[in-house]
């Protein structure tokens, strides 16, 4: 806490200092010379950097997906079967859930 107090006091002292706006002699001539002698900007440069980033992201995703895939158990059949049965039950409940009389009708033997 004391250290934070000291830090704030130091920063307050530094804040009071105004930075000089002094410019070296004929600096604007140096800038104009630099601009005229600078090579023309490559218009594809932003695309290149963007594509590199995209490629790296794709590689990372591919590596993560590959690791996950190879880490899975080799015999997923029982789980799939259970899932299919569970899905079938859910479908039946969804379709026939609102029709209690249908179940009764199916349960009653046909009258002669």
């Amino acid at each position, binding site marked *: 806490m*004391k*250290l*934070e*107090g*000291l*830090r704030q*006091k*130091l*920063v307050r*002292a*530094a*804040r*009071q*200092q*105004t*930075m*000089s*706006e*002094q*410019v*070296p*002699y*004929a*600096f*604007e*001539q*140096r*800038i*104009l010379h*630099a*601009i*005229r002698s*600078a090579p023309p*900007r490559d218009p594809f440069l932003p695309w290149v950097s963007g594509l590199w980033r995209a490629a790296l992201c794709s590689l990372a995703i591919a590596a993560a997906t590959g690791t996950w895939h190879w880490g899975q158990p080799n015999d997923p059949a029982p789980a799939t079967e259970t899932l299919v049965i569970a899905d079938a039950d859910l479908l039946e409940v969804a379709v026939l859930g609102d029709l209690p009389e249908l179940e009764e009708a199916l349960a009653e033997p046909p009258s002669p």
Partner: protein
Amino acid sequence: MARLLCPDPREIVAAFMDSSDASVIAAIRAGETGRFEELVCRYQPRLFATARRYARRQDEIEDIVQQIFVKVFQNLDSWRGDAPFEHWIMRIAVRVCYDALRVHQRNREDSMTQLSPEESDWLEHHAAAPDSSGIDAEAARSLVARAFEQLAPASRLILTLLELEDRSVKEISALTGWSMPLVKVRAFRARAEMRRILSRMGVEKYL
């Protein structure tokens, strides 16, 4: 010979009151490259003041300002005019300064020199009277400058903008392109980092 010198900034303001940034930029885009000098004369004092916060050697400061203007010229077509040109140029300035800090960090040798006699005097005075404003602010500034030299680039940038230039989180977010929560998180970390550096410099024995 007189052509080589920029006039006084107040004269520039008076002379260019009728030629706004937008009209000068339109002329440059139309091929009058020489008119870029007007923008340079208008903004170079402010950019030098900004660059001096991030670099100490004069040649480094001049290189930073030159890079800013070259980037401004190369990207002038991307200024759409929906925000003031000054804001746009300051965004570029902050990014160039940040890049310069990162390069500087790679080439930096970690050296934690001893406190100077003036800095020790200042700290002793602080220990005796923590609530006083302090004597010899120059010693305090030197201490801050040395601590800032040791900060990571992002921390130095955020503390400079937030605590030395007294900018808001929203302004910093606009200048750096970082989200506002990220600015807050980085500011929190930067303060902690500065405390650690001060502690390493041996200021704790004065507390």
